[in-house]
């Protein structure tokens, strides 16, 4: 921990590069796509460097401009943070490649040239800004700075949500914005209480010193409610499906795969210390259990593919919270399960939304009933959709299976049988709704409809790459788990 302030300057690059990219894309309106790709690749590179540095050198810490806290901004990269940055980088790169193809296809295939060009000009700066904000959130060491990043994440994602311009997406975005603001204000009030109780804003100090005194309990409650609102944990999930399902395809993927992980990660950070977990860890777990069941039923009853995938996010968020009672002892398997759910969900869900986007683009609708036969038009993305589904269901070989295994075995070893059963039943329900969609997508019907426009190959293949990654996570678990050990 006693590193000199400058030994870990590499921490800032995953934040600075996309931020710079956002500015460049905003100013260089002629070819934002080119700039966007360039900065995405560089961000991905710097994030990989960060991951590698953390793995080889341990926790990194950096004070911006040499100013020490509390007034200066401190960045801190430990294993979980680095893993989240890596997750964002890899998923983000896939989404970036897809977006390039997406705007290219739309511009090539439609006469409303002007509208799509404007969409694209706004998309790239907002997306890179969001990326920078997410990385800032993962790497921030103090909770006020985290508040700023949270707001940045929220504002840029609202901007992305409205891009599609359809009236439902506007209303959904407004609701999303209001919920987000409510969440971050609640969070800020909690930050105030924490400062009152501890006299510091450093996350590492606060999360270790969670003593059950009234201000601390108040603070933790406020912060938790704020973050649950933003993560859309049941019963705060109402805003998520319309916002995620009505956005443009790459935006849906960004929101579902990455944005909710930001606030979830903070929730974990505040609770990880464990002092209060034994007493109240059951609360997020219960809400998570309800989310798993409720989300699955809702997903099953949807008529539109993107709504189904969005409700599946509601259910999967449940998994992200259900393991909190398992964090109490230090073996770390509960944490491993949580993070493995997060990263494999990120890849799988991004792949599914991206694949669903190609169906939409090709057929002009996403009614599940009428999707039969789409396999012939889009074999690669159909396969990607199915593979993503495999990971969501937690069937081998996939990251979802590893996560489910870790969760259930930890739950059984702690005699939390209800938790193990919820996880198993939940994955059965997931299979029910996933196969409702997959059987339609994979069915060998012949399709009569004529495709609307040519879907760029890069779209299908980037969806498949992410889906394959979700599968590969199922056999390369030792690597991410080793990174998580660095704390």
């Amino acid at each position, binding site marked *: 921990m006693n590193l000199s302030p400058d030994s870990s300057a590499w921490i800032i690059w995953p934040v600075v590069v996309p931020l710079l990219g956002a500015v460049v894309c905003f100013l260089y309106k002629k070819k934002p796509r080119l700039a966007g790709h360039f900065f995405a690749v560089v961000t991905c590179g710097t994030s990989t460097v960060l991951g590698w540095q953390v793995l080889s050198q341990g926790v990194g810490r950096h004070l911006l401009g040499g100013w020490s806290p509390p007034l200066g901004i401190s960045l801190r990269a430990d294993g979980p943070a680095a893993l989240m940055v890596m997750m964002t980088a890899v998923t983000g790169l896939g989404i970036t490649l897809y977006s390039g193809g997406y705007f290219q296809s739309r511009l090539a295939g439609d006469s409303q040239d002007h509208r799509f060009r404007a969409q694209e000009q706004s998309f790239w700066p907002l997306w890179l800004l969001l990326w920078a904000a997410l990385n800032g959130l993962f790497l921030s060491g103090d909770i006020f700075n985290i508040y700023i990043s949270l707001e940045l994440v929220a504002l840029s994602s609202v901007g992305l949500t409205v891009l599609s311009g359809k009236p439902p997406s506007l209303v959904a975005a407004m609701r999303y914005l209001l919920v987000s603001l409510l969440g971050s204000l609640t969070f800020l009030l909690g930050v105030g209480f924490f400062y009152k109780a501890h006299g510091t804003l450093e996350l590492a100090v606060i999360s270790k010193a969670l003593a059950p005194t009234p201000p601390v309990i108040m603070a933790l409650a406020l912060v938790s409610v704020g973050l649950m609102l933003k993560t859309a944990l049941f019963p705060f999930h109402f805003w998520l499906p319309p916002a995620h399902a009505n956005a443009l395809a790459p935006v849906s993927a960004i929101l579902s795969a990455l944005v909710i992980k930001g606030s979830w990660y903070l929730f974990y950070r505040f609770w990880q210390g464990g002092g209060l977990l034994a007493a109240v860890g059951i609360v997020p777990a219960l809400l998570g259990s309800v989310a798993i069941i409720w989300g699955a039923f809702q997903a099953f009853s949807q008529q539109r593919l993107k709504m189904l995938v969005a409700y599946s996010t509601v259910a999967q968020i449940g998994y992200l919270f259900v393991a909190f009672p398992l964090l109490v002892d230090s073996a770390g398997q509960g944490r491993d399960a949580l993070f493995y759910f997060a990263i494999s969900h990120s890849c799988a869900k991004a792949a599914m939304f991206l694949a669903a986007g190609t169906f939409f683009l090709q057929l002009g609708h996403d009614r599940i009933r009428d999707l039969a036969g789409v396999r012939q038009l889009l*074999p690669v993305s159909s396969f990607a959709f199915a593979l993503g589904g495999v990971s969501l*269901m937690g069937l081998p*070989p996939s990251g979802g299976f590893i996560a489910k295994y870790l969760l*259930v*075995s930890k739950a059984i070893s702690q005699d939390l049988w209800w938790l193990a059963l919820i996880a198993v039943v939940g994955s*059965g329900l997931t*299979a029910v709704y996933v196969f409702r969609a997959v059987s339609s997508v994979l069915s060998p019907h012949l399709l009569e409809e004529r495709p609307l426009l040519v879907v760029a190959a890069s779209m299908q293949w980037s969806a498949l790459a992410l889906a394959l990654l979700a599968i590969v996570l199922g056999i390369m678990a030792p690597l991410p788990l080793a990174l998580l050990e660095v704390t």
Partner: protein
Amino acid sequence: MAWQNWLLLLILLSSMVPGLIIFTLAESNRGWRTALNLCGAVVKMILVLVMIIGISQGQRFAVALPLLPGVDLVLRADPLSALFVALSSLLWLFTTLYAVAYLEDSPNRSHFFGYFSLCVTVTIGIALAGNLLTFLFFFEMLTLTTYPLVIHRGTAEAMAAGRVYLLYTLTGGLLLFLGVVWLYVLVGEVDFSRQGLLMPLLDGHRPALIGIFCLLISGVGVKAALVPLHGWLPRAMVAPAPVSALLHAVAVVKAGAFGIMRIVLDVYGLPLTSGLGLLMPLMLVATCTILYGSLLALRQDNLKRLLAYSTVSQVSYIVLGITIGNPLAIMGGMVHLIHQGIMKITLFFCAGNIAETLGVHAISRMNGVGRRLPLTMGAFTLAAMGMIGLPPLAGFVSKWYLGLGAINQGEGWLLVVLVLSTLLNAAYFLPIIYRAWFREQEGPWPKDSGAMGLWECHWMLVVPPLLTAAISLLVGLLANSTLSPLAWVRFIVTTRYEPW
């Protein structure tokens, strides 16, 4: 020693790589697809032969991949896995030949053959799994790779059958998963080669062991179609004939039966299973399944459904052999894994021929089929006789050892079950044979794709059943030679399970 580790991976890759390439081939690219398929199948046969020779000379084949801290994916070839691997790769070769001709003009062949190859890869993975988690890993993948084959026709009926199939197998998978994880929490790595691993738990964890056993057996029992978990099997008959052949003889049902063997013999071990009082209930389930399957088969008029119920019944012979639990009976059960596979695949090939060439699906319309398709019906008759258990055919050998084992074990009542089941088998197979050979044809066939040169229909549809029928005759006739499956099974039982 490196090549021995690579060999197992190569055996997996020899069907996986062609499968993945086939996915990318154009629909019309028939030549390449067929070539890849057959090459893969032949290469796999050769590799498997090398492996079997190696095992019989005492070489060890194993390869491990760390999956999680303290949990490995292990592939290991022991004699029992070699038995299953040999069966799967041999029958895969025949089924591929058959499927190429069978699906000649149907759509989506690239998809079909791609999943077909993956399915065989996964089955081999099940056979080679060296610990329980690896077994679970491949067992679940089998569900995923067979589902697209079940719904291959895409009709409403096929989709419905696919749903039922998933409902059963995924639920079974979850039960198995829960059991496996529970066991891992109790004892850590459950390796098949460590006998008596669970013995120390007998005193402290009796209820847990019983619970886990029930979870595991009901998990694999779904695929083995144990009554009352058999409902998916007859419905999955809407799939094309090669798929049925694959489900029944090569992959799914066999994987279930193989799983029961692994759990009873290698994970729990016979002493522990009987110590927990679990052998008898399992034996009762097996006998019920044998009789119930045959009774239902009697009532069927659709040939493929009849064969499906017959599978339900026949596969439980394997379970029965294991649960009787003395070396002779285990031999009978194990060798039935092979014998049933060869005979049943013959029957499905023939049923497919009759349906494909003449459009006849119902048994009541089969009058006179023997005149039109003598070779096919000849093979069918041979295999059906084998199923009934007439000496010297394959089925007789299995039943003989089962019976001997039952008597040695003092379970004489099982002989009654065996005799009853044989009578039932005869009662549903003999009428078909009688109709086909001795009744006059009634009216024209629903369709007739015509003879092709010397052959009664496409030669690739006739040759595979003839070969498998011949094999089913040979394994019975030459059961005592050193190269027969029986000899190999004797080798397994004497080296691993005899001491008890």
